[in-house]
């Protein structure tokens, strides 16, 4: 997610905790959905019949900094508690470690609109399904800095990938790399003949490395140029993550929602901790009911960890394509699973 955007959107829903990110040009969107079964305990929060569950966004770097060193985390951390304190404007992450050590991180958050990419898989004309490994082996032939790649069809049902060369670049100076994959390398191929789409490779690579590590097959839905390009993956038991990502490079967007099924390990200890913690929280709150402060400098813990995940934001699409995309896809009146379905309207950063 950090490869997509600088802010992490947390949205608890009845069907799980959704972590999302969008890039600065709104051309790529990613979301992970952790089903309730993934957690030992999951309480999205109490809501009335019409009220929405609280959602917020935090700085990606701050959040990542807490989980910086995975090997040492695996050795020392027993439990991790994530708590949203709307009234105190804090997202609390508490790591319960060995030897009775508890590390508590308080992150300031901002309230935000629901972040949702608009697309309809059913309307996509083409679909490809392949193991992440095959796709990773395919993209390895392209230079690591390559921004965009064109996917096409060829004779004999073969699928081709080629580096995208800008129109402005001189053809006599640019090396062109093309890879052909046979139909039987894929788990499923249903591609409209003559399809020819270009998408952002950088963001796709991030997704791919995750999928490869988790050994997930990816299904890619796409249509004509101008509509979303959406890789999806579904994981089995015991693997985390749901990624969905949308990219609108040259009106191609790529999104991968993976849903998680994970059997919980019930633990009474955790419930006790949670309850007592929440009780303590209730009593100590200052109770300022004002809107959350947009600044984050108030907490020194956020600044100490300046881990750079090496994320590179996606290349912004040409302005005209971006507006074309949003214009065509926002289909009014279509029923949606969520109570609201709005892509973030504001263009400016950090001013939700």
């Amino acid at each position, binding site marked *: 997610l950090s490869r997509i955007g600088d802010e992490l959107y947390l949205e608890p829903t009845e069907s799980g905790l959704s972590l999302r990110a969008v890039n600065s040009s709104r051309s790529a969107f990613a979301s992970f959905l952790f089903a309730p079964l993934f957690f030992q305990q999951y309480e999205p929060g109490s809501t009335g019949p019409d009220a929405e569950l609280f959602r917020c966004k935090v700085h990606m770097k701050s959040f990542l900094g807490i989980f910086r060193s995975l090997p040492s985390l695996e050795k020392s951390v027993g439990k991790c508690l994530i708590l949203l304190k709307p009234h105190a404007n804090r997202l609390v992450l508490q790591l319960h470690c060995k030897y009775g050590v508890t590390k508590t991180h308080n992150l300031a958050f901002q309230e935000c609109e629901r972040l949702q990419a608009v697309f309809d898989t059913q309307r996509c004309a083409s679909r490809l399904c392949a193991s992440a490994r*095959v796709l990773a082996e*395919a993209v*390895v*032939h392209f*230079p690591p800095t390559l921004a965009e790649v064109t996917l096409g069809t060829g004779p004999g049902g073969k699928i081709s990938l080629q580096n995208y060369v800008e129109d402005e670049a001189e*053809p*006599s*100076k*640019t*090396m*062109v*790399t*093309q*890879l*052909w*994959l*046979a*139909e*039987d*390398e894929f788990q499923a191929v249903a591609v409209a003949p003559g399809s020819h789409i270009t998408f952002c490779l950088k963001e796709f690579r991030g997704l791919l490395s995750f999928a490869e590590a988790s050994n997930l097959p990816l299904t890619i839905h796409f249509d004509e140029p101008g509509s979303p390009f959406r890789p999806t993956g579904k994981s089995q038991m015991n693997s985390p993550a749901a990624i969905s990502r949308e990219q609108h490079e040259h009106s191609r967007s790529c999104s991968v929602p993976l849903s998680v099924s994970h059997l919980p390990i019930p633990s009474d200890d955790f419930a006790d901790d949670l309850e007592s913690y929440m009780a303590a929280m209730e009593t100590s709150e200052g109770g300022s009911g004002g809107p959350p402060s947009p600044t984050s400098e108030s907490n020194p813990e956020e600044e100490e960890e300046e881990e750079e995940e090496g994320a590179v934001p996606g290349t912004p699409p040409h302005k005209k394509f971006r507006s074309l995309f949003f214009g065509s896809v926002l289909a009014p009146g279509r029923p949606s699973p969520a109570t609201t379905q709005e892509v973030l309207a504001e263009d400016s950063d950090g001013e939700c």
Partner: protein
Amino acid sequence: MRFRAKIVDLACLNHFSRIINTIAKLARTCILRLTVCKLYFILSDKVANGGASMWCELCQGNFFDEFQMEGVAAEHNEIYLELAPENLSRALKTAQNAKAVKMKLTNKHCPCLRVAVELPSLSSSSRIVTHDIPVGVIPRRMWNDFREPSVPDFDVSIYLPALKTMKSVVERMKNLGNFIVIEANLSGEMNLKIETDLVSVTTHFKDLGNPPWATEDGCQSSARGRDLESMVEVCIDIKKLQQLLAGQQVNPTKALCNIVRKRIVHFILLHEEVSLQYFIPAIA
């Protein structure tokens, strides 16, 4: 003008890739000269290259299973192409376990060297990756610019110390300054010196040995009667030396250099199947 070649043996492919990687470290663009028997990678000493020049020669039979070329004309059966060796290096980089690599000169929209890598795959048919590397065809009238440089009238010729050692010394010296002085004598001694306002560092190498022709009569009139111990020095851009040493991935069979006092240093690195000569001029 036609060119087609194929490599099937993995060891040959890896060896060829390593050579290309070395060339890519030395030059951003260079000339590839193809003849019936040999391939040459040439960098001529234009100002744009900082005056350094390179001549690398290999026998095609040692690498290619198939090699066919037709030059521009019957009596000039050669092809000169200008290309960026980095592109070729990149194309071969992911061909580590290829079944075969084919190269072909094509001219669809513009002249290209097409490298087609056939990779094993789980499916019935192989995976094919093609890289179209743009090349420039050098016209016949310019071929004279790229002749083999002659060995200069050197003052000293000496074998180099272990390249790995030399490389680590030079890399550290690079942090201190931009120019390095190489001096050597006919008694097998070489010093690498760097001098700045604040510090001067010298690394001494002994017992390196001098090639037989260094002390032959009639070879160097200036060397005759000269003290075997006296040092001949040349001051060069340290980056060029560092690039040369950094690009060496395999220890050469023979490595030596010829120094012309205050003018130029000529490095010769010989492997079994490839020879590389690199000239670095002195800083004016």
